[in-house]
């Protein structure tokens, strides 16, 4: 077991280097760089050919004149020192930009994932038990309708009808907290934030129910048709006990695979939701950094995501063993 763990952790290192190297290659090889984008057309318009020296000078400031391999090595070396560098956009440490955007994204994602799981899994279980009933058909129709609605549209509709001045004015239009509430008491602040988060959370969740509910249902159906369930029924166990203890636990194995995506999923923000509700989160930070070729920010976000994915996979593998004692970790390598 220990040997397995050590092996797996050691394997993370080359995988991580591989992922980040490819990311770095992609962003460096993409057309355009920060300097020329910032200068854009407006800069070169004014001095034309003379300005080339000036632009080369500035690229040098950001190390863009160095070969890609050297650039990557420098980045990696700084990473070992836990230095993500400074963002091109505002000259601040990348780590402080991330730590500013991360809390709100984490809050939103945790609430969203919690709601999605707490609703979808029971729904999936119930649908599998009452298979092909009106309830099963009705919910799956509803969930697929929700799934197919584009979130930018739903988000805007919610804003227009529930926060605008023409229809209902129930929720705030933008942000996560009212101006001046930052220093209010804990409870007051919590209520105020909750009030702000209703619409963003609705927009983030409604489309995710379908996948998880259907996934749970499919896994449950597979288990329910097993012979040991029939045995349990024959033993005269209550339906609740059969479903929850015998069937559900065994349908957990495929669900565990999803856990690997949970960790990196916490970090990513939805650009659309953040834009509509004016939430300065990770999605917008990353999106903007990619479009403006802000390499330090892109690399930091991507490397954190890569690391979390690798850790997530590792955790999922251990969780397999936990839910299914037949799986032996050592045999997998």
């Amino acid at each position, binding site marked *: 077991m220990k040997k397995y763990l050590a092996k797996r952790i050691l394997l993370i290192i080359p995988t991580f280097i591989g992922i980040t190297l490819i990311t770095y290659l992609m962003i460096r090889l993409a057309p355009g760089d920060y300097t020329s984008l910032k200068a854009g057309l407006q800069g*070169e318009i004014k001095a034309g050919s003379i300005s080339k020296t000036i632009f080369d000078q500035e690229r040098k400031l950001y190390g863009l004149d160095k070969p890609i391999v050297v650039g990557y090595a420098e980045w990696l070396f700084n990473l070992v020192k836990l230095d993500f560098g400074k963002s091109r956009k505002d000259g601040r440490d990348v780590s402080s930009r991330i730590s500013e955007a991360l809390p709100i994204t984490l809050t939103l994602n945790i609430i969203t994932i919690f709601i999605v799981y707490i609703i979808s899994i029971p729904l999936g279980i119930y649908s599998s038990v009452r298979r092909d009933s009106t309830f099963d058909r009705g919910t799956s129709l509803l969930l697929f309708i929700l799934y197919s609605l584009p979130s930018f549209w739903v988000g805007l509709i919610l804003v*227009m009808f529930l926060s605008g001045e023409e229809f209902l004015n129930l929720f705030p239009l933008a942000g996560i907290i009212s101006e001046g509430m930052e220093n209010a008491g804990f409870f007051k602040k919590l209520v*105020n934030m909750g009030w702000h988060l209703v619409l963003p959370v609705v927009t983030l969740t409604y489309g995710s129910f379908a996948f998880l509910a259907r996934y749970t249902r499919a896994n449950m159906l597979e288990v329910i048709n097993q012979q040991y369930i029939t045995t349990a029924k024959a033993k005269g166990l209550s339906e609740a006990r059969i479903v929850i203890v015998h069937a559900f636990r065994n349908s957990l194995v495929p669900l565990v695979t999803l856990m690997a995506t949970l960790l990196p999923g916490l970090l990513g923000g939805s650009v659309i939701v953040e834009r509509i509700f004016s939430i300065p989160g990770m999605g917008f930070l990353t999106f903007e950094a990619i479009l403006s070729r802000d390499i330090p920010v892109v690399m930091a976000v991507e490397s954190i995501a890569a690391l979390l994915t690798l850790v997530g996979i590792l955790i999922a593998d251990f969780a397999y063993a936990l839910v299914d004692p037949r799986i032996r970790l050592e045999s997998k390598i």
Partner: protein
Amino acid sequence: MHQGYSVNFIKSLIITSMFFLGCSASVTDNDPYTLYMHLSSDPGTLNPITSSEAITSTINENIYETLVDRDFDTLEIVPQLAVKWKISDDKLRYIFYLRKGVLWSDGVEFTADDVVYSYRVIKDPSTACAPLKVYYIDIRDVRKIDRYTVEFIYTKPYFLGLNYCGSMPIIPKHIFDDGTDFNTHKNNRHPVGTGAYIFKRWDTGKRIVLSANPRYRGKKPDIRNVVFKIVSEPSVALQMLKKGELDVMSVRPIEWVRQTNSESFIKNFYKLEYYIPNYSWIGWNSRTEYFKDKRVRKAMTHLINRDAIREKLLFGLGKLVTGTFYIYSRAYNPDIKSIEYDPEKAKRLLSEAGWRDTDGDGILDRNGKKFSFTFTIASEKKFSERLTSILKEDLARVGIEMNINRYEWAVFADRLHKRNFEAITLSWLLSYSDDPYQLWHSSQVDAGSNFCNFKNREADRIIEKARVEFNDRKRNKIYHRFGEILYDEQPYTFLFCSPSLVAVNKRFTNVKVHLRGLNYLEWMIRDKK
């Protein structure tokens, strides 16, 4: 009993939360002395030297000042930090006499040292301000003559010299010259200026707060605080405007025409329209076989129904332009009539140029080559997207096949600089007095912004002559001739000058529209609660 308790508990919880909701709603109530402005994105820094974003200058023009300013109505150059200036006879030396007793918002006096320092920082190779540097290439030096006098020395005469020297950003030496890295200096996000407002607070991604500068020498503005709220989704910002959470907002043409005409909107908001120097255009790359011939370029302009496009895409807003200068400047030639929409004439011109449908497949051809070109657009620009889909149909009717290629902005710009395109559309943001050198001089076809390979001997001569012509009237006269050349050559199909459309809450009075736009320093508050 137990049951009853919990119901009551829930009830009281709901009531308390209602109470808190009520509370929080009242917190958002606006302070009557504060102006709430809309900002579409968060600027990176507020350093006027290193930042080239337009939104940065929206904020900085309240905080930082320059040596001279432009009059809001006449656009004449007027004193700001300099009280007067002198230009030497050889037009190489500009002496500025600074205003005495001007204080930076931290109380230190503004002097010639700040001007010299700002210039040195701009010139320093380690300062990341390439877009700004290019303006000051021809300045050899800036010298301090005494505490309140500075001299800019040019290497060659240039008619925009006063403009460039006078509008150079000026930053406080005592704040920035502290030995730390300029590009990442802490005051890049905490500006100290001499203007009417001082920086108060910046909640990244949310808002930037300014308040009236108590040390400001001029008349104290009625508006005591300015809050820039960052809202990136325009339709949400419009809702905020309607709810009273924003006072000022630039609206899009569709909103101007469709969403801001209700009775209550008209009652509560001013709708203001003005034109800053800009124009959109379609460029025909004359390196290609199709657009080498000016008859073809003219035919293309004849084929583009600009009036209809203006109706469809800009809802009738905007002005048709015929040349490269700001429509309200004297350099713009008002006598040139726009080339009319006339497909028949276009067909004749195309056939004169050799483009005829000889094989009867419905597409024009010449020497066996079909007239089939690619229009390159930046995918983020909705205007380009709609414009090209209209063009595609119109051109197909006379037998020209047009394909549309969309690229992300960075890729688009890259192709532009490599001249790797056949036709493009873009718009230029100009200054009030502009030098056409970079756009139209033949020396700029490879590395400058003369993307479409426009080369004309007479135009070159005019551009060069105008650069050293300090007499406005004479210069404008030769620029009028330049306008005629552009009309004849049609390197671009000139499109529209787009208006700035702004809605302002009527709780302010004395809201005037100047040629330069709005000036909220002069606004008054109607109802001081």
